[in-house]
């Protein structure tokens, strides 16, 4: 056997580690392109380098394919018969798994329910759920494949990054898409894309309003380095009108496990309140690090932690955490006059019966997206343009809030959709102080 030099082995290894990183993807059969297409979106992992370019290649391909799909469907009278086909691209594995898992369960539950009740206008609902592995490129690949199968609507993705990767594909294919993620950039200026999670802007409005009630003036921010946390500091400055509100801004990877550097930095900055902007498990481990390093400054979170997993992972460290979120987590504390009370309690009971655990707020985002889609299909059928036009005026009393969509606002929720929730006794409770008197 010839002896390889150390350098050769290492060069080879770097390529192989890249391969390992996208191993599942390579194993995933990528749908073949229709004949006559020049560009090829299939993943060529012979050389790790193509991985990076793939994400940018895909949109072009999808444009052509998707556009063809849309025109065909529109001109085809048969399209208004047969099953309604809903496609979902969710973060089922990877760092977003705690979001995508409950969302998948919810969509499956609702599909069973609606088909058991006779479908939409007598048409059965078919649901095709894809896992994007919490990756932007995989989200684009899966969406392209769904578009080729001519689905009537796209639900997802669970997080901002994959949703942003999907947006241009849906726009160019002219197929309605409802994202379940937070960042306002997903729907800013969009034609075909809607979303059900509360915009990060309204969340920050709520946080800033709460800070005012507590007399806190500066905030130390440790945020997710992915698209979910992008722009959060600017929003704080913008919403509060105070250019110096953010005392310090630190970042952590979505799959980070070690937070000492970020927390020491928050400790040194000495802001009035600290905000960890992330999703569990990272947000929970960060909370543990926060307590372990002896920080006693009040700690707020984003609406990204509305999941039982946060409480389980953070344990006692979660006590006293305050954050804005939809009413689902505190369903049992809602007054009878609350317009969302009935829809929330019904959903909680159904979900609990089906899966033996309470639903997370992410499950609620999936519920709202599904109901918006079904409402649209029930009113105007499956013609993509009609569905889109309907969604722009849709109203829905949902789980995440009372939606009022408009051509300008494809999110449809204001900060009224949020309440301030506090972790006390290992459970979610409605905080005593609620800004805006809500």
């Amino acid at each position, binding site marked *: *056997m010839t*002896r*390889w*030099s*150390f*350098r050769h*082995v*290492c060069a*080879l*290894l770097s390529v*192989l*580690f890249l*391969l*390992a*990183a996208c*191993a*599942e993807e390579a*194993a995933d059969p990528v749908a073949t392109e229709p004949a006559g297409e020049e560009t090829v979106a299939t993943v060529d992992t012979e050389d790790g380098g193509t991985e990076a370019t793939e994400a940018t290649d895909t949109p072009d391909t999808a444009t052509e394919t998707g556009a063809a799909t849309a025109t065909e469907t529109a001109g085809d009278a048969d399209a208004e018969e047969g099953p309604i086909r809903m496609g979902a691209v969710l973060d*089922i*594995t*990877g760092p977003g*798994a*705690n979001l995508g*898992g409950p969302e998948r369960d919810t969509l499956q539950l609702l599909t069973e329910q609606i088909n058991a009740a006779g479908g939409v206008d007598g048409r059965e609902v078919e649901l095709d759920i894809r896992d994007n592995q919490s990756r932007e490129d995989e989200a684009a690949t899966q969406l392209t494949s769904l578009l080729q199968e001519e689905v009537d609507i796209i639900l997802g993705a669970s997080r901002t990054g994959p949703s942003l990767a999907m947006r241009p594909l849906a726009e160019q294919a002219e197929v309605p898409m409802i994202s379940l993620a937070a960042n306002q950039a997903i729907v800013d200026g969009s034609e075909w894309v809607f979303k059900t999670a509360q915009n990060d802007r309204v969340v920050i409005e709520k946080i800033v309003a709460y800070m005012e009630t507590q007399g806190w003036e500066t905030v130390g921010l*440790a945020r997710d*380095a992915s698209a979910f946390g992008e722009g959060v500091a600017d929003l704080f400055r913008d919403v509060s009108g105070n250019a110096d509100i953010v005392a310090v801004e*630190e*970042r*952590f*990877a979505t*799959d*980070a*496990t*070690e937070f*000492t*550097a*970020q927390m*020491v*930095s928050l*400790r*040194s900055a000495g802001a009035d309140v600290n905000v960890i902007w992330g999703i569990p*498990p990272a947000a929970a*481990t960060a909370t543990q690090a926060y307590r*372990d*390093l*002896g920080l006693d400054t009040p700690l707020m979170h984003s609406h990204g932690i509305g999941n039982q*997993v946060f409480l389980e*992972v953070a344990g006692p460290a979660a006590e006293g955490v305050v954050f804005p979120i939809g009413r689902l987590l505190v369903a049992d504390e809602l007054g009878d006059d609350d317009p969302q009370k009935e829809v929330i309690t019904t959903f909680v009971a159904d979900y609990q019966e089906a899966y033996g655990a309470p639903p997370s707020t992410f499950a609620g985002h999936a519920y709202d997206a599904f109901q918006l889609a079904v409402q649209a299909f029930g009113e105007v059928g499956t013609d993509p343009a009609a569905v889109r036009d309907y969604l722009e005026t849709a109203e829905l009393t949902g789980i995440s809030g009372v939606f009022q969509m408009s051509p300008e606002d494809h999110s449809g929720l204001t900060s009224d959709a949020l309440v301030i929730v506090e972790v006390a006794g290992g459970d979610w409770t409605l905080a005593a102080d609620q800004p805006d008197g809500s």
Partner: protein
Amino acid sequence: MTAGVIDFLQLTVAGLSAGSAYGLVAVGFVTIHSVTGIINLAQGEFAMVAAFVAIALLAAGLPLPIAGLLAVLVVALGAAVVERVAIAPAAGSSVVAYIMLTLGVSITLKASVLLIEGPQSKALPAFTGGILSFGGVLVRPQDLWILAATLVAALGLYAFLERTVTGKAFRACAEQPTAARLVGVSPARMSTLSFVLAGTVGAVAGVVSSPVIQTDWNIGLFLGLKGFVAASLGGLASIPAAIAGGLLLGVVESLGAFYVSSGLRDAIAFFVLIVVLVARPGGVFGRTQAAARV
């Protein structure tokens, strides 16, 4: 102490804790590479599987120490099986073939855990609770457990290699394979042994670090990458250098995340790897010549 000094020490402690796990995984790379010439891409998966076995045993009602030790044992034996089933039959293959084989093992382990345990992360409880303060530097007891486990594993390995006949045969096989064979040491047996040792240290890393890193099915890739960088710092040739490399990497990451930018945390390891491979391909602690095995 001033606040700046406390911060520095705090970050160093965090770095040493993270670096211990890197170091143990790195030792696994070195033991296998030194005897067989194979880079074992499933090294991080040994740690991941051990943590999940321990979590499962704990859930089955075993006390934590026994669950942890059993998990290490299971993975050590599992590593031997991997060597017998996947590596040994390919004896005499090229380096590329071996790397492909270990990659296959890695994907198989990951996919199996994903199938059985699901995508959510899990963790062992901290071995002991509370928090210790040393002049303002706050230390989690688990950090001390991790450092202690690394020390015990390293000393145990040292004692085994220096003081036992089998250990000496192992070293002989790494240093002079032909001569070792002439005096009756079986390279095949030593190859199996190298996997057992690598499985053991990897499993120790996985079990002791689980309470602080939240184990999920994909964590092996992260540990494997960091461990590989740590092993490369030592030129992939020496066990003490691998541990030192791991500790160094952990501390550099932690300090870099604070003093440079927290967004760059994960880039630091790979930046270090590039610099080391270009400037000192034999490792920071090794010879500047292309590395000989051990």
